[in-house]
């Protein structure tokens, strides 16, 4: 999977930690090289929004940070 630039990331080799609270779920991937990718999803009550905050901590500057939606059927 491409997350940082064009360098493939193997999620199977990452350390993964997920924190679940009421209204949010946060997953942190720690790549073999020590880089970190954090996905923080939150949902508002009622008819509120679903929001994703994606952050990263890397040892070198990166130009692209990607998040992929798979299996979409949204026209």
């Amino acid at each position, binding site marked *: 999977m491409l997350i*940082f630039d064009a360098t493939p990331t193997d*999620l*199977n080799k*990452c*350390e*993964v*930690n*997920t924190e*679940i609270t009421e*209204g*949010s*779920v*946060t*997953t942190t*991937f720690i790549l073999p090289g*020590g880089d970190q990718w*954090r*996905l*923080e*999803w*939150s*949902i*508002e*009550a*009622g*008819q*509120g*929004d*679903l*929001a*994703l*905050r*994606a*952050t*990263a*901590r*890397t*040892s*070198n*500057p*990166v130009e692209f*940070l990607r*998040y*992929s*939606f*798979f*299996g*979409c*059927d*949204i*026209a």
Partner: protein
Amino acid sequence: MNEYPSGTSASNASGDHSLTPLATANVHSPKPEVKIRQIRRIGKIVVTFAGTVYDDSRNKESNLKHKSGSKSQELRRNLAAVLLLLALCNTGFTDWQDAAHRAVLTNKTMEVRFQAGFVFSLTDRLTQNHLLSIGPS
């Protein structure tokens, strides 16, 4: 029946405190917030890429390692590394496809299921339409 007009807007992702420990970090990209899709009746999906933080303190640390170096120091460092490795083995890190990384967020209008931060199911609760659905593994 399903009308999901696209909408875009941008605003600053203020209040980002998720990476506060890195006081020396340089932010290399702005913090755009992009609404990628507006779903009528059931709210919006808002995606925020808060930017990548370049941790130059880690490079400084690695430079220091190269400078230091008696054998006893090296042994001590190796021992510390082994202990750290053992500690990590007990921290409960699991495969990203493990059920421990599965979660559900629900409000009045949508139900979203995640596997390690990846959306694998998005359901409109008002119409029961599956807007996104794939196997979690």
